[in-house]
Structure formats: C-alpha cells, structure tokens
C-alpha cells in the first residue's frame, strides 16, 4: 500500500473523530433507555398520541434527510476539489438544518405554551431531554458548518480544511441516523400503540 503522510494523518484523525461519535451514541442510548422506561408515565398529563402530529414529524424527517444528502454532495465536491460547489452544498445543508431546528423549536414552544412543558410528566421530561439533546447537536453542527464555510472561503482547500470537512460530514450523517430512531421510537411507536 502506497500511502502518503497526509493521507495517514487524515485517516487517523477521522478514526479519532469516529470514536468520539461512537461514544456520543452511548449518550443517546442512555437517553433512549430513559424514554423507553418513562414513556408511559403520563402523570395525568397528555399521552404521546395526543400531542404528536404525524405530518409535522414527517416534514422534519424529510428535511433532515435531504440535508444529509446535500452534505454528502459537499463531500463529492471536495473530492472533485471544486470550492464553489462545496460552499454551495454546505450552504444548502446549513439552510435545511436551520429549517429543521426552527420546526423543532416551534414544536417545543407550542408544547410549553399549551402547558405540556418538561415539568408536566416523566414522559415529557424524557421527551424534551432526548429530542432537545439531538437539537443541541444539530445547533452545534450548524455553528461548525458556518465556521467551515468561512474556512473554505478564506483559506481554500488545504489538508486541514479537507480533514475538518470530512469530520463535519460524519457528524451530520450521524445526527440523521439518531433521528431515524427518534422518529421511530419517540414519535411513531407511541402514536401507533
């Protein structure tokens, strides 16, 4: 195998970032476990099927899924070393991510305004903690994306920006994978059953 020093550095730091993501999975696992245990403890408050709306969650899901595609297209552009395309796809990804976050905040604000805040029941505490933690990750991803765009714009495609972009893409894909389990286990199953 003929590998250059820069490739080695890139792959090592990507693996390190990957291991961080894997430990982040464990954070989400404990929050999912909490939700699974407390998901039926309504304490006289609303049940899941009373406060969740299927079309709204589907819309959120499709927006986040599309943003993970455009993030992948930014990586394709990175391999073609096309700076304008990278910036363009990152912008689209960031815009879709911001839209997703706005919808999630709208859901939270509506729930709290109706008196279904995180204090209302164990179910709602678990819900706000799990979905809120995911939203916090998305916010951090968005900030990172802004810095990334500034970095690509200012310094162009160096080994450093390339490495950072690959890590950002991994992070963003990871957030969408967590969301698969959120829409399935937090929204769909409690609404169905």
């Amino acid at each position, binding site marked *: 195998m003929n590998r250059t020093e820069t490739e080695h550095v890139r792959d090592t730091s990507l693996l390190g970032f*990957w291991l961080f993501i*894997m430990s982040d999975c464990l954070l989400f696992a404990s929050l999912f476990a909490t939700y699974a245990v407390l998901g039926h403890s309504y304490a006289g408050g609303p049940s899941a099927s009373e406060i969740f709306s*299927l079309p709204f969650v589907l819309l959120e899901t499709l927006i986040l*899924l599309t943003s993970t595609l455009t993030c992948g297209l930014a990586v394709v552009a990175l391999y073609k070393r096309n700076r304008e395309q990278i910036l363009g796809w990152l912008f689209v990804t960031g815009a879709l991510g911001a839209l997703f976050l706005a919808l999630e905040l709208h859901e939270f604000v509506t729930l709290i305004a109706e008196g279904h805040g995180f204090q209302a029941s164990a179910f709602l505490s678990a819900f706000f903690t799990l979905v809120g933690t995911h939203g916090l990750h998305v916010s951090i991803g968005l900030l990172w994306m802004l810095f990334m765009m500034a970095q690509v714009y200012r310094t162009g495609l160096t080994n450093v920006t390339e490495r950072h972009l690959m890590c950002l893409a991994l992070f963003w894909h990871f957030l969408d*994978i967590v969301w698969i389990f959120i829409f*399935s286990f937090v929204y769909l*199953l409690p609404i169905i059953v």
Partner: protein
Amino acid sequence: MNHEPKFHGYLIGYLLSVALTLIAFGLAYLHINSGHLAFSHQFLVYAVVALAVLQLYVQAVFFLHLSRHPEARYNLVSFIFTIFIVLFIVIGSLWIMNNLNYNMTADQVDAYLHKEN
C-alpha cells in the same frame, strides 16, 4: 474511507432512506385512520423496528461508507461494539425497570400512590 465518494452512491442511499421513511409513516397513518384496526399492534411494532434497522444499515453503508474494506476495519469494529453496548443499555434498562415494577406488591403501589397525591 479512501474510496472516492460518488454522487450516485449518495443518491441511492437517499432514495432508499426516503422510501423506508415513507413506508413507516404510511403504516402508522393507515393504522390511525382505520381506528387502530388496520394492523395488529405487534405487527406494527416489529415493522417499525425492522424499517428503522434497515434504514440504519442503508445510511451506514451509503453515507458513512462502512464496509469490510481493510481501511475501514477499525470503524466497523467500533461501530459493531457500540451497537452491542447500546442494546445492552436499552434492553437492560427496560428489563430491570419492568422487573422492579412487577415485583412491587399492590400494597406498596397503594402506599406509593397515596404518598404522591
């Protein structure tokens, strides 16, 4: 991770993910609109879980580029290890908490409820 990512790979992953998502939401929608009669609850639970796991597989392959390729070996090994731990945490918590619930006597539940109210 060194294979060059291709446009059509991402597109296939995206279309498969959208399809799996729509099937899951479609099943839930049909079920609710039929007054919870269209499918048995057990079937739906299995179906939604299976669709989620399938979508995890699709995204891991097409977006995260996990494979048996030697260069992705450590990623794959740590990924499988993490899945194992995640299942351990979630199933273990459910098991223990249900067991605790089951082992509370009616008197204990009564006393607990009265204290709460």
